[in-house]
Structure formats: C-alpha cells, structure tokens
C-alpha cells in the first residue's frame, strides 16, 4: 500500500455480482485490501480479511466448513464475524485472534463492501444503481476484473463522451457529439454532464434500436456521477420534434450505461458495467446482442475502451512527471475528481495527494 491516497476508503464499492458469490471462497482485492467473500447458508454474504491471523496465508486458499473459514495451512477457523473459533493443539483461544470483517451489503444485483471505518458504514449511502435491478430497466452486463489502470481514468472516460467519436466510430460515435454544447452541474456528491444533440442523423447503433428509417432524432447523453466511483449514463434518441428535450421521450428509445468502478490497487480497478434499457425489455436476444456489442473478444465498444485505458496507464507510468492537460470537454471529469478529492480531505483532514492535483 502506498501513501498516495487515490481513493477514499470510507465508501461502498462493488466487489462482485451477486450471482458470482456462492457458498465457496472467492478472493478479491479492493482498495489494496485483500478480501475473501462467501455466501453463508442463510444467504448473507460475509467478507473477511484474506490473511490468516496466524501466518497470513490467504484464507481464500482454505475451505468453508459450514459458515466458517478453515485456514488451509494450520486449520485455524474463523467465523463470519472474523473471530477465531478454533486453534489447533490448545484448549483455549487467544482472545486477540481475529481477522477483519468488512461491512457488506447486496443491492442492485451487486455485492458492495466498505473497506474503511466500519463504524461509518451506512447502507443508505450505497450509490443509487437501481437501473441495474433487472426490473424496470433490463440488461446483462459484466466485469472487467483487474483492468490495469487507475480507476479515475475510467471515470474520465465515461464523463466525457466526445471520445465516442474517435474510439467508437461506426457504432455510437458521431461528429455531432463533438459539436453539441453541454452543461455540467454538481452537488456535493454528484456531478452531471448533460448534452443534447438536436435534429441529427442517429448513429448506427441508435438508428437500429429506434427503427424509424430516415427520421432525424434528438439525442441525449445525461451522465450522472456519484462520488467516489459510479457513473450512470442516461442515453437515447427520440424522433426530432416529439418533445424529448422537454421531457416526453415516448417517441424514442432510452438506455442507461452503468459503471461501478472499484479501485483494486493504485493502478488497477474492477469495472462492473451494464447497459440497461426500457425498450423491448422482453427481447432476450436483444439483451444478448447488446451485451456482445459491448464486450466481444476485443470487438465490442468496451473492449475498445479497455485498450485505450490500459495504454493510457502505461503511458502515464512512463512519463510520471508529465501533468495531464485539460480541455473544456474534461469539465465533467474534473468535477468528478474534485468530489473524490473532497471525500479524501474529509477522510484525512488534509489536502489530497498530488497525483490528483496534477490533473487539474
């Protein structure tokens, strides 16, 4: 763990999709902390520090016995609260023998963990990610585990969609994005980038979803950031002149790209993504197609981002002294970073570390 404070610890971070956590041990690194996750027989998820109290072997290399974790080295047993309940070859248990138990909640089909001070872990502060519930909005996403970049690079990527024009030409990219004005607003925990492109030809992906050949559309991208690291993009198109900018989207199609980005280490992250929609929600083939359009053995739009993000981190590492330069288009990203820095200041009572300032 380095001293550079790149991410607040007092926050909820997605650690897994709910369906991934079964009655077996699963290792994750979240914010430089090694954790082991498992589902207890009552359905609750438990998250423990992934290092035995005794000799530090990862507990994830052990096994479950009932709802307790047996270390794979000397058989020490820890319960879901992290307390040792068995020590070999002695009649008592050392009262200090505990591993850390992390606060954990399941919501919006994800498992959220709180790596910081457990006394501050309030489930009410889990990011609003209801688009992922699989009810009103429908979609099946995935995860880029251990994406090799600082989690904030992903936030930068999503908070400025002009990159679509260049990274995702031919699908969702369009010159109109770069010429349309946008507005950036914020609260103390959220930042929102709003961009409307009025009376344009829909880009290929949206033309197909709308299925109104020849129609011009009003296209919107309303990107909503919740500190420290979730992004929801309310995106879609509606037939021009039907009132979408005024709030009537009935003549359009609406999707939401969802991103819960979890720092793994200082230079890697887990990127939980989904693309949910409110149109043709019963069409399972469409669900599969949209999933594939995002990640498909290197050919999906997120595969394109993946390549850019990792290459960007390599370049940053090779040029550690070079600052970022910022453009007008980076306003959303800069607000996001500022809100992260505010959280860091609240957590540490001091100005956040230089790497973040370098971006401003």
């Amino acid at each position, binding site marked *: 763990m380095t001293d550079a404070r790149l991410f607040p610890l007092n926050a909820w971070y997605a650690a897994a999709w709910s369906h991934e956590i079964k009655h077996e041990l699963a290792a994750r690194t979240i914010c430089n902390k090694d954790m082991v996750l498992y589902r207890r027989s009552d359905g609750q998820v438990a998250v423990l520090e992934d290092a035995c109290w005794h000799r530090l072997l990862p507990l994830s290399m052990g096994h479950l016995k009932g709802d307790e974790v047996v270390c794979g080295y000397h058989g020490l047993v820890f319960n879901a609260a992290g307390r040792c*309940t068995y020590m070999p070859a002695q*009649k008592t*248990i*050392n*009262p200090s023998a505990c591993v850390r138990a992390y606060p954990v909640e399941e919501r919006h089909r994800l498992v959220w963990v709180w790596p910081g*001070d457990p006394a501050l872990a309030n489930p009410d502060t889990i990011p609003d990610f209801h688009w992922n519930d699989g009810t009103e909005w429908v979609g099946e996403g995935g995860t880029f585990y251990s994406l090799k970049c600082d989690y904030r690079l992903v936030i930068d990527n999503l908070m400025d969609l002009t990159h679509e024009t260049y990274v995702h030409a031919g699908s969702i990219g369009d010159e109109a994005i770069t010429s349309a004005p946008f507005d950036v607003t914020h609260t103390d925990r959220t930042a929102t980038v709003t961009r409307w492109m009025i009376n344009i030809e829909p880009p290929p992906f949206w033309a197909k979803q709308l299925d109104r050949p020849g129609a011009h559309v009003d296209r919107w991208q309303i990107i909503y950031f919740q500190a420290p690291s979730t992004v929801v993009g309310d995106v879609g198109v509606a037939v021009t002149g039907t009132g979408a900018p005024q709030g009537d989207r009935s003549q359009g199609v609406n999707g939401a790209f969802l991103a819960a980005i979890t720092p793994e280490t200082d230079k890697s992250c887990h990127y939980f993504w989904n693309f949910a929609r409110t149109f043709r929600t019963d069409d399972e083939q469409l669900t599969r197609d949209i999933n594939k359009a995002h990640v498909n053995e290197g050919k999906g739009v997120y595969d394109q981002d993946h390549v850019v993000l990792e290459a960007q981190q390599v370049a940053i590492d090779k040029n550690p002294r070079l600052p970022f330069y910022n453009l007008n288009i980076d306003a959303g990203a800069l607000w996001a970073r500022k809100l992260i820095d505010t959280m860091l200041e609240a957590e540490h009572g001091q100005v956040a570390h230089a790497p973040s300032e370098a971006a401003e």
Partner: protein
Amino acid sequence: MSKQVEWGKGILRSVRDLTPDIRLFEIEPEGEFVAPTPGSHINVGVQIGGRPDVRSYSVVGPCTDGLYRIAVKRLPDSRGGSLYMWNLSPGAQLSISTPGNHFDLSLGRPEYLLLAGGIGITPIFTMALALAHAGANFRVLYACRSRQDMALADEMRAQVGDRLQMFLDDEGARVNLDAEIARLAPGGELYVCGPIGMLEAAKRAWQKSGRPVDQLRFETFGNSGRFATEAFKVKIPRLGIEVEVPQNKTMLDTLEAAGVAMISDCRRGECGLCALYIIETTGVVDHRDVFFSDEEKAENRKLCTCVSRVAGGDITIDTADRAA
C-alpha cells in the same frame, strides 16, 4: 487483525486525577494522530529501575480532538510502569505508539453487555460511548471497591444514563453473571475488562450458558492475579540457575536477564509460547494468563512465565535446554 503500530514522540499535555489512585493523561502526538477505535490501546515507553520498558494502556474516550487519553492506576505492587507514569508532569516528553487494538468492538449485534472491574473501565467506557453513539442496545456493569474508586462513572452516566449500573464491593453489591448472561439477547456479546478473577468468572459463566465462545470478548494485560504481587525465587536444576524474580519484574524478563534462552510473543498471557514446566513449588502458582484452561491451571504442569507468578513460596521449573 491488529494493524502495525508505529512509534513516535508525544508530549504530556495535562493530567487529571479521576480517583485517588487513577490518573488521566492527555498526550499529544508529535507525528500523525491515528484515530483510535473502541478497545484500542497505545504503548508507552517507560523507565523502570533505570531500564526502558513498554506498557500498554487503553485509550479513554473517542479522542476526536487529536489527543490520546489514557488512565493509569497507581498500583502499590506495580511492576513499575504506573509509578513512572505518576511521576510525570505536563510537558514531559514521551515515547508513544499509534493505537493498536486487541479488543475490537464489533458492530450490529442485537445487544451488548459490557462488564468492567476497577481500572478495566477504560476500554469499556470508550465502547459504551461508541455504542451509545451508534444507537445500539447495551448495558454496562461496572464493579469497583468503593464509591471513591469509581472513575469515569459520572461522565459515562451523562452519556448513557441508566444503561450504566454500578456495583460497589463495600456496599456488598455483586454482579450476578449467570443472570446477566441469561438476560442477554441471543447473538448478543459480552465484553469484559477487569481483574483476572472477574475474567475467569465471566468465562465460566459464559461457558455454562452454552453461548458461542467467540461472542465473549475480553482483554487482559496480564497484570492482575488472585494473589498480591511479590518477589519469589526460581530454581532451574537443569541449568544450575537460581534467580530471584523481584516484585517489579516478570519471571520471563528475569529469566531472560539471567541468560536463559526463552521464546515468547505476546508477553501478556495469551499465546502460551513462554510457558515452562513446573517441577515443584513451595507456594501457590498464581496463573494470570488466559492461554491455559481452568483444567490445565488446576493441573499445574506449566505456567506462562510472562505474567504468572508464585505467591508464598518458591518454584522449581524446567526449560527446554536439551536435544530431545
């Protein structure tokens, strides 16, 4: 897992007597202040008979103002740490560690029973405040000798009200552990900090209740026994050594100083690594550890040299100085 503690300098800002023999110390760290969690202690470098030693003291209260607060009881039979602390005046330079925690308070339990005896109130006080802050369901049972020995009781009463119940020895009040444990909600936890007699009674009552062993939490710094702390002689026939363990030194420290090869880790009676075989004793072994079970202590085959002592006589022990 307890986090790594780091040593640094601190300045004693003020002292205040909480009772005739318990004194509160406010220490400002020179380096980074690390907010202590309930149940934490800090280590303080002390001088005992001219040699440096280390004592651990529980942190008192949430310390949100960047000062570490500890309370130290002046013990007539102390090994010397309390004497050193009591001789300090405001402005004194101290060597202190960042907080460590061997006595973590867990959150979200249906109910908590906190049991303190005497100076054991220090971590319990901090836990009670934290639980009150979190809106948890808890009760505090605080036993001490007499009214004048109650430390932090008024401060705690102001914050937790009737959740605090006092038990004064000289008024004949006793905690009925069996009944108190029976009242505790299923899944509730008992936290105990106090003299070894209280701790052992709590362990027995807890075991009798059939509750899960991990829901009884306790802390010991291994400095209290059933008998007064006194000097005693140790004989090791295998090594031809005979040494006196003075009142202000542990048996482990004495043996190490005498050149006996020892292994140890926690030095507070938890891990059992420093235990040696008892050959015979003319006194009574005062087992002050939490490593051996009651049955093992009754068998008297071994003792934890870091904390346990002998009262009213001498002891002959054996070491591991042999090939096999």
